[in-house]
């Protein structure tokens, strides 16, 4: 029994030591572990020019302008904003009010010249008809905080193919 307790002690000790080592390692490298910076983080600690970086936030409402192939929009976290210039294919989920992550190089003018734009999905899962009625209720008011209200193009697809009453009800 003593031997077993001693082994358990060693096991716990070495595991804790290793855990702390890895924890410190990740803490030190959190700048590189993090996938993107928010506009506020970018405002606090300015980055070098021509360093590749990713900026994540919400596409500001009314900011999307298309001129030919290039698209211009503004990423916001409701405190600070970063303007983005991008030419290429946007993901399907891209729209105003949608969370996105743009990767590119920050120009001297403070504009992010992006070479890729990814859509960030949030953790809410809502059936189409529920989203529909929620939207109707909150019409006229400000959009909800998560601000992932579907655009008119999206809401035109009622009723969804299998969006009727589920089996369990």
């Amino acid at each position, binding site marked *: 029994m003593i031997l077993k307790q001693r082994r358990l002690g060693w096991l716990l000790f070495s595991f804790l030591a290793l855990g702390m080592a890895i924890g410190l390692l990740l803490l030190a490298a959190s700048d590189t572990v993090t996938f993107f910076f928010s506009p506020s983080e970018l405002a606090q600690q300015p980055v070098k020019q021509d360093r590749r970086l990713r900026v994540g936030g919400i596409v500001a409402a009314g900011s999307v302008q298309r001129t030919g192939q290039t698209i211009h929009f503004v990423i916001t976290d409701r405190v600070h904003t970063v303007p983005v210039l991008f030419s290429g294919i946007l993901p399907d989920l891209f729209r105003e009010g949608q969370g996105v992550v743009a990767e590119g190089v920050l120009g001297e003018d403070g504009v992010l010249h992006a070479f890729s734009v990814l859509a960030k999905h949030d953790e809410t899962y809502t059936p189409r008809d529920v989203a529909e009625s929620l939207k109707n209720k909150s019409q006229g008011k400000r959009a909800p905080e998560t601000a992932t209200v579907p655009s008119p193009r999206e809401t035109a697809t009622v009723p969804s193919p299998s969006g*009727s009453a589920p089996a369990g009800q």
Partner: protein
Amino acid sequence: MHCFAKLAYRLRHARALLLWSSTLTVVLLVIGLVWGLFFSPADYQQGEMVRILYIHAPAAWMGLFSYIVMAVASAVSLMGKYPLANLVAKASSPVGAVFTIICLVTGALWGKPMWGAYWVWDARLTSMLILFFLYLGHIALVNAFDDYGRGARAGAILAVIGFINIPIIKFSVDWWNTLHQPASITRVALPAMAMEMLLPLLVMGLAFTAYYVTLLLVRIRSEIAAVQVRASRCSLRSIGKRL
């Protein structure tokens, strides 16, 4: 070897459990798949693509769960002589590896249409890939030694050390900015998922759990059979030497 003989005798009772778990797997899997793929509603943003969730999330849970089982069994086996603990650890790692690769592949298939990329090196995805490599390393290490006991011991040390990855996977979405969305179900507020999606997901979670138990039992039984074969070969060889 006589401890294995006792173990094999005790595991006769496992046959009833195996029958239950395999029946439960089939029933829950049929209910969960039909419910999830045909009767649950489409998401207002992801549309029909949301249905990958019913495979992806349970596979991810079981990928983590298999590792926790493996690490606990390994810690127990490092503390003393517990032949069953070694067998559980050895049986659990290939099952967990398959669940993890299912999670990674379905995630990639979902990521392309939703995010716009099959793969990104964010903390959640990378730590899940590390989990897969830990499983592969464990499988290789356990089988790398001629002596069964030494292989089991080396594998147990790797499994315990690698356990540090599990909380990293779980909390990666909270600690760092990731492209992967944060947890929808295990959070302080209510689940951020509509009931008619959450229920089939939970049924699928139970189905995958029952499947894991089934596979674990089958693998432990075959592992015991392999030990018995090895033991009888050894005794045959020693008899041959004496003659």
